[in-house]
């Protein structure tokens, strides 16, 4: 079957994906003093700003969880998501010379950007450990499920990455629209505030996988949640669906990338 053949081909390019991700990371932090330390700057900076706003200007009730930790558990995965979207959008257009001159599984380009975003995520995650130690908060009993949540988040991100990368090659508008979308999306999801118990934001969270994903991270890490809730499972379903559709779409358009780029 063609899909199996395509999957096998993609798998055979795993080394290339790793090499391209390495290229992304190395070239990004080369000639900087802080190097990969810069991966911390954005999530930590945002966490400080929101802590200031939501503890001094408009105090927010986050229950037993100190606001900085509440915000950081939201901002850390959100930053990963935003980095996957912005990175993959330009992954094909930034590599025109490759797309028009050499053949390889084109998925390698957006996937390398996803991998590079995960690298930054891993570095920034160390701050979460430090924060929890500082506030003396131990991980909850369901913390072992966190990797499952991360996998769902990555599936969601990769599905979108395929669609965005291909779409941006057709219409460069995508990368500009994306900046607005990411901002609106962040404030429309429970990134820096707890999800209201009623109202349309709650309704929206059924079709916006980000909110249940973030809530599940929080429930597992600093709450007493030990199971995955229906809303998260719906999000997982949406993510898997998007991953498959995104990849099939990418495959379909791939044959014309050489002409379009």
């Amino acid at each position, binding site marked *: 079957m063609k899909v199996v053949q395509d999957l096998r081909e993609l798998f055979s390019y795993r*080394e*290339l994906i790793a*090499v*391209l991700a*390495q*290229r992304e990371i*190395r*070239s990004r932090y*080369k*000639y900087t003093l802080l190097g990969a330390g810069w991966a911390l700057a954005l999530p930590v900076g945002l966490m400080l700003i929101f802590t200031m706003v939501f503890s001094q200007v408009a105090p927010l009730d986050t229950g037993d969880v100190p606001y900085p930790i509440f915000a950081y558990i939201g901002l850390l995965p959100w930053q990963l998501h935003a980095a996957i979207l912005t990175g993959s959008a330009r992954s094909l257009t930034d*590599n025109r*010379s*490759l*797309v*028009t*001159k*050499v*053949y*390889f599984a084109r998925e390698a380009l957006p996937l390398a950007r996803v991998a590079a975003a995960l690298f930054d995520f891993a570095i920034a995650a160390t701050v979460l450990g430090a924060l929890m130690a500082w506030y003396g908060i131990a991980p909850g009993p369901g913390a072992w499920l966190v990797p499952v949540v991360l996998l769902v988040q990555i599936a969601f991100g990769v599905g979108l990455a395929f669609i965005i990368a291909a779409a941006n090659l*057709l*219409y460069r508008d995508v990368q500009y629209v994306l900046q607005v979308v990411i901002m609106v999306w962040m404030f429309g999801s429970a990134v820096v505030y707890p999800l209201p118990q009623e109202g349309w934001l709650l309704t929206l969270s059924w079709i916006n996988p980000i909110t249940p994903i973030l809530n599940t991270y929080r429930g597992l890490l600093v709450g007493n949640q030990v199971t995955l809730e229906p809303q998260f499972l719906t999000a997982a379903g949406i993510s898997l669906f998007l991953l498959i559709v995104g990849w099939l779409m990418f495959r379909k358009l791939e*044959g*014309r990338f*050489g*002409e*379009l780029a």
Partner: protein
Amino acid sequence: MSTQPSVQFQSVWKRLTRRAQVSTFAELLYTIPKRILQGRQDGLSEHDFWALQNLNFQLIPGETLGIIGPNGAGKSSVLKLLFRIFRPDRGQVIVNGRVTGLIELGAGFHPMLSGRENVFINGSILGMKQKEIRQKYASIIEFAELGEFADMPVKNYSSGMYARLAFAIAAHAEPDVLLVDEVLAVGDASFQARCYDWIERTRKKGCTIVMVSHQMHVLESASRVLYLNEGNPIMLDAPRPVIDRYMSDQAKLMTSGDNADDLAVGISRVQLLNNDNPTHELRAGDTATFRVHYRLAEPVVGPVVTLELMHNDPRFPIQTPGGQLAQLSSGASFRDQTIRGSGHVDVDLKSLQLPVGMYNVRAAVKGSGDFAAAIRRDDALRFEILRPPESEFSSLIELPQSWRVVHQSEVPQP
């Protein structure tokens, strides 16, 4: 060596569009429903053209295919189809084995990263495993003659080093099918020689080679040559008959029409005369007269007439920065004269020593003042210098020669 074909083109058609994409949002709104209603089209729409039409051939391992044709003939499309950058619109392209292209050397080099880092990235892009690259690393650096520069960022490389490194990586990819575009114009002569040497050795190992070239000596080394014109396969045969056909087609194209023109003012035509007979064909060493016909609205004081001879034969890649092979100028000859109305200026050459090939002529008449108006005409005349009767491909120019033997002794001297 197996005779299983390594490359097969089966009735391949490739459509390209002159426009990059649907340009405006309004147009997009219009085309999407149209596409849905009409379904996928197999024919040509308004902006499309066939880059290749019904191309068929197959190659066995160890075979070399040369591709020749004027610009826009579809040569690059063939390479891109082989490299899977393009997909055929009709028909099938079947390639067995690893394809590596010397198409754009160094595509994917990251300027900020060192030569070493780029070896691993580029090698991986060309389909090599990291382990394989580690094993071949020393050999790659040696082939590229980089030495201690391997750890320098690629952005600081000279263009020669850049090309050498890129070629060295591609050379170590051990392809089953190698695509060669005219990329080997970079680098010095010794490097080029090593490249061709390497290509030849690779071929002997059973690699199939497809190369686009305008250099006849390169094409003559191919097993077969494909002649393309505007996407149509014209001829596919042994090199000599194909090259001859291509050259004669080019010649016909160039000498058709006399290029006379009813310009009110300007250079109306340029003629080439041999013993007062207009001609388009000469042999090197013939006497020749170029006659520049002018029509002037106003008198030109102290005219300077120049003729630039441009060699149009792709066999002749060496050109001056202006593109001309030779220039004839009247210089200060007419300093004290004035030309007016219409007439012609002649320049006589006792012996026209030009290399074999096709030429076109750019003519200009200019006043001697700094800001004096000039009349000029591109492509004012086309002519051909014919191959000397017996030299075939062995000589591009005919040197006047006389030979003698100097007899010194009856026995060989030490």
